[in-house]
């Protein structure tokens, strides 16, 4: 997962949106599996991070999305 997040954020920093967005979907899919059985407070925190990330994605702010993945999501995993 760590490697996937690092690679995704790198692509987003480099403005390679198409490949970056594909990997974001892959992260979300893996997170759905990962969150099963995690403590509720952790799930809530990760959910909030995901919402922030999706907002950044919707606003077309690739750098903010990359930052959220790298600096908010990664330390939670």
């Amino acid at each position, binding site marked *: 997962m760590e490697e996937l997040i690092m690679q995704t*954020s*790198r692509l987003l*920093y*480099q*403005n*390679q949106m198409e490949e970056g967005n594909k990997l974001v979907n892959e992260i979300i899919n893996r997170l759905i599996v990962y969150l099963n059985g995690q403590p509720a407070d952790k799930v809530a925190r990760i959910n909030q991070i995901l919402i922030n990330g999706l907002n950044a994605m919707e606003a077309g*702010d690739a*750098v*903010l999305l*990359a*930052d959220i993945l*790298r*600096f908010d999501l990664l330390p939670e995993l």
Partner: protein
Amino acid sequence: MSCYAENLKLLEQFDKDMYVNYLSWLDEEYKKQVVLREEVAKSGTTYLIMEKNGKQFRMNSCYSPENEAREWAQQFSLNNIRQVVIMYGLGNGAFLAQLRQSCKEDAVFVIYEPSLDLFHHLMQHSDLQRIIGNGRMHLLVQGLNEYRFGNILEASLSWDNINHVVATEHPKYKEIYPQEYVCFCQQVNNEWVKANMNRNTMGYFGQQMVRNTCENLAYLSNGHFYEQYIGRFGDAPVIIVSAGPSLDLNIEKLKSAKGKAVIIAVDSAMRELDKHGVEPDFIVSIDPKKSLRHMEPLIARRTPLFCSDTARSELLEQHEGEKIFFGLSPFAEKLKPQQYPEGKHLGTGGSVSTSTFSLSVALQFKTVIFVGQDLAYKNGMSHAGNRMVDKEEQKLFQVEDIFGNMIASRHDWYQFLGWYEENIKKLEGQVEIIDATEGGARIPGTKIMSLEKAIETYGKAEIDCKKIVEEINSAYTTEHYERMLTDIENVMKDMENSERDIKEVMFALEQLCRCCERKDYGKTYKKLTKDVVRLGANIKERDSYILMASWIAKESHDILGSINQMDGNIEDNEMRIYKKSLDFYKELEVAAKEVKQLLRGSYKKIIDKE
């Protein structure tokens, strides 16, 4: 001293034009186009926010700008020798700093900043020492010095580096300045195409240019540099005399311009001028293979000559007057006294006339008058004196003449016409350009006038060019001269080291080919590949490589042109690359011997001249 005062001082010291333009911009009442502010990121460093037309743009990561820049820069391959990086938009400099860190020290950066407000912000809040006071860093700011962009690109992109040029943009600028971005891309693309054409020229002239550079070192060590003449001609206009067929019309009138304007003639106009008893103040010669007949008239031999170090050496030998160097090759640039820093390149445009135009602008003439600049045929003739000098059938173009009719032009003239248009546009409001050719193609941006009227209107000053030349000493003091000799000695030693390295690298490449044949990719193979990379880098990092590479320009294009094309399996590709590299080093070995001989001869010639 405040950061702003430090930056201003640097600007004044290293880029006078930009400094003056910046001060006059500050003096004018300007309306801010964008609002800039800095905020602190989570990592503790600052990031920039730009507000334009009511919209906010965050220019860096608000978490960690340094991490963003590092990750962003990883997409580029920047470890080449003499890497060129062209960047659109400076932002707060974080991306540029990261690119610099990833490049070797000899990398050249050309940065185009479309926002003067941003530059002003950086002047006030950032230490710009690494940008302004750095000969390898060219900053062009729209509204201050963007007119130099084309020339700097031309100087930075060359036949031997176009394969590893990185052209990129600050991630946000394309969105904030889209129109300017399109212009930026067009200009970069144009220069890239030109560099490709130069590649062909180097293939044709490469050896001759190296030969000329070496032979001309003796003249360089006694010569003047054009920088010594900057601003020396006061308000006098300059008349650039080219050899187009319309020169026959007004050649006699040039006599009345003597002393009222500075007359600079291109070398190919000299015989006609001599026939009519017209004595120019200066001649210009840059062609590596120019016919020596142009230097036959006594007047041509004695008139001060503006020339490049790659100009035909026999022509410089025939010439007895003062030689003033401009448009130096990268090798000669390195031998220049330190007070004339490397990097102040003038655009050449591809012909002696276009080069003379660039030179005139650099010499700070405020009025430039063209004579004999037809860029078209006249009654089937290509040159003054009723001459037709086209050696082969030319592709013809129809262009508008100064009277509004269509006339025939040639492929190269058509290119020069485009070059003039582009460069004259950049000088709008700074230099007045008069076309007194009295015929030929219409050059956009020029004022059409008869030569008589132009002299009457602009030739008010009294100018004594002979006196100006006499007052200027050789650019080389004893100390500079000795340093130049030491530098040449060092290059000759370099050559010997390179010859040794070339032998070693060839041996390693032969061994690698054998390993490939045996399909042996073990320890020996790995060591050999490392050796090849190390030795190749050693050879290419030395100053002597500039000369050797030019010497084999044609051969290296042929050999290396397809080296990066991958087809077939990996082993076949590796074998092919080693064999091609081996061919390349064989050529380089020959070049090293030839160039070393030439340099030895030149060194002796300099000592003998002393």
